[in-house]
């Protein structure tokens, strides 16, 4: 049994037993879904289907339906792609990096954060696929033997690195998530009363029996997967940033991009986790497991990564002047004072100022305030990508080509649609899957449970 300092806040509140944990997590799955779930699911489904409609229209008509022009060839599509990939960084960071650092508080949130990651990466992957125009030849991004002659994909291109990075990240995260889910599905299977549910969870649980040797392997596989996924988390957004950093466009051609993008991704990912978790803990009655301390820990991560992002913005600005390259200097001057000044200053306010408020203990422990800031951060991080992408290319070297980008209703429809689809997936997950790693949480009950920490023999046991 692992001991921790007595003054450390317990991670599991109240007087829970192993059985209570099973009950608390399984009850929402076994009970009838509340009316609110149907309402939210209905709304998400309508928005999602609208997005699917827009995508079908785009595929039928061509990429011309987006608000792009000759100067601005990349706008909402790649902005949304990077935004979603960024959001998809929290889950694996929580379950992999925090596992290596032995952060026990991750156990309450890793399952749903990882689900969020996977769904966010689904949404991200959609954008590069649909921007090809011909979705059905999407497999051409793979180096497959073909009848076109010696035709291979270009391994020098960051866009191809992206294909490998995103697909590896998605599939490894999925496997990591599922391996953790297997024992929890077994718990639901062994409790299920209805034959259909029993059958379904029996298939999903792969016949898990919880033998000592299985657990021995389970622990090692989790550790090694965490070790593999940790550099993966950092590599994915580094490679996404190479899409810009390896080009020669002023405003993109910066060596600071990889660390700055990774910090930004973690920043926005944790914000999205907060948004979802604050609602979920309430709706599913999990306040004993995900409480103020967990929210505070996550807010500290938001504060730290937000500060890294802020430092990066200011460094970038300084270097654009200090480099002496007039084009570089103009790109940044134009960002702050040009026609897109409002996007730049929204980004600055949301991403640089708002996380600094987390220095106040009262604010970072306030659930309402956290919820508000988490939304603000996600808006800010969308603007960050928009500012980097659109303001850097809308005024290029030839003033006659200068242009503005106005999104078409298809641009907006596809983007809003992905948010709908994301919630469709997340709501289905919350309905049918154990949202808490319930068997993992049991392992910290005696070390970090409130009733155990308060018992007189906690510190002279064993």
């Amino acid at each position, binding site marked *: 049994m692992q001991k921790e300092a007595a003054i450390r806040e317990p991670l599991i509140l109240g007087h829970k037993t192993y059985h209570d944990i099973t009950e608390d997590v399984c009850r929402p799955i076994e009970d009838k879904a509340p009316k609110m779930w149907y309402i939210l699911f209905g709304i998400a489904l309508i928005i999602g289907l609208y997005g699917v409609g827009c995508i079908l229209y785009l595929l039928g008509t061509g990429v011309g339906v987006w608000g792009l022009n000759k100067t601005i060839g990349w706008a909402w599509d790649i902005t949304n792609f990077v935004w979603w990939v960024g959001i998809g960084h929290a889950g694996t960071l929580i379950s992999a990096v925090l596992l290596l650092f032995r952060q026990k508080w991750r156990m309450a949130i890793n399952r749903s954060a990882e689900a969020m990651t996977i769904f966010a990466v689904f949404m991200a992957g959609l954008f590069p696929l649909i921007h090809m125009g011909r979705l059905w030849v999407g497999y051409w991004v793979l180096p497959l033997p073909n009848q076109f002659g010696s035709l291979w994909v270009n391994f020098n291109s960051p866009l191809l690195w992206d294909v*490998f990075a995103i697909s590896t990240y998605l599939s490894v995260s999925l496997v990591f998530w599922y391996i953790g889910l*297997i024992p929890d599905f077994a*718990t639901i299977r062994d*409790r299920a009363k209805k034959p259909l549910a029993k059958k379904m969870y029996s298939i999903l649980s792969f016949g898990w029996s919880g033998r000592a040797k299985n657990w021995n392997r389970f622990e*090692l596989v989790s550790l090694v997967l965490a070790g593999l996924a940790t550099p993966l988390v950092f590599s994915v957004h580094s490679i996404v940033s190479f899409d810009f950093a390896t080009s020669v466009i002023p405003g993109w051609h910066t060596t600071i991009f990889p660390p700055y993008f990774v910090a930004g991704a973690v920043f926005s990912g944790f914000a999205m986790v907060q948004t979802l978790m604050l609602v979920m803990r309430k709706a599913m009655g999990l306040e004993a497991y995900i409480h103020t301390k967990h929210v505070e820990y996550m807010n500290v991560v938001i504060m730290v990564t937000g500060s890294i992002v802020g430092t990066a913005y200011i460094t970038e600005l300084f270097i654009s002047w200090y480099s002496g390259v007039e084009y570089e200097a103009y790109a940044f001057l134009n960002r702050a004072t040009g026609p897109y000044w409002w996007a730049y200053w929204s980004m600055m306010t949301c991403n640089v100022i708002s996380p600094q408020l987390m220095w106040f203990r009262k604010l970072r422990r306030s659930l309402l305030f956290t919820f508000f800031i988490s939304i603000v951060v996600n808006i800010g991080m969308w603007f960050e990508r928009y500012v980097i992408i659109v303001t850097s290319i809308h005024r290029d070297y030839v003033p006659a080509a200068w242009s503005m980008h106005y999104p078409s209703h298809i641009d907006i429809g596809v983007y809003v649609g992905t948010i709908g689809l994301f919630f469709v997936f997340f709501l289905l997950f919350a309905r049918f899957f154990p949202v808490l790693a319930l068997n993992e949480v049991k392992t910290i009950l005696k070390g970090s449970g409130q009733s155990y920490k308060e018992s007189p023999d906690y510190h002279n046991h064993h």
Partner: protein
Amino acid sequence: MSDKVIYVMYDDDHILKDGAKKLVSNGVKISEVFSPFPIHGIDPIIGIKNTRLGIMAFLYGITGLTLATLGMRYFMVVDWPMNIGGKPNFTYLDNILAFVPVTFEFTVLCAAHGMAITYLLLNKTLPGMPAQNPDPRTTDDKFVMEIRLSENSNITEEDIDALLSDTGYFELDKKEVK
């Protein structure tokens, strides 16, 4: 050959661990422990060796690294050296920096998936497999120790019962199996 299996159920992981220690020190062989979560420290007591899956992951990773290197060398250097601005790719080594990201990703891909598949096969956990835990409560809050008489020929059933009686078990069940 018929065999008799004793299933001893505990409602706490520490009580089971203490019980297992006592049984093993009296020469009883415990064939299996079923639990809802990993009981730390049970493996050496009941004689379970540490898994070597980590070594497998390393080997899968090396395979991925080799495949990525050979593949990219063939695509980019041998089959069609790409001429970018008059700087063709004559050797793999001269261009290795551009190949680092994909090499890394492919190594991780092979290591992770190779290990995951091996893990599922070794555990015999695959979609549609039947559950084998003796009691449905072992995935909730109960812990079961399995003792097979055929593996304990040096000790009588009565002696095992006597040893078990003061380990503080929750339930005891005996089954004849073929």
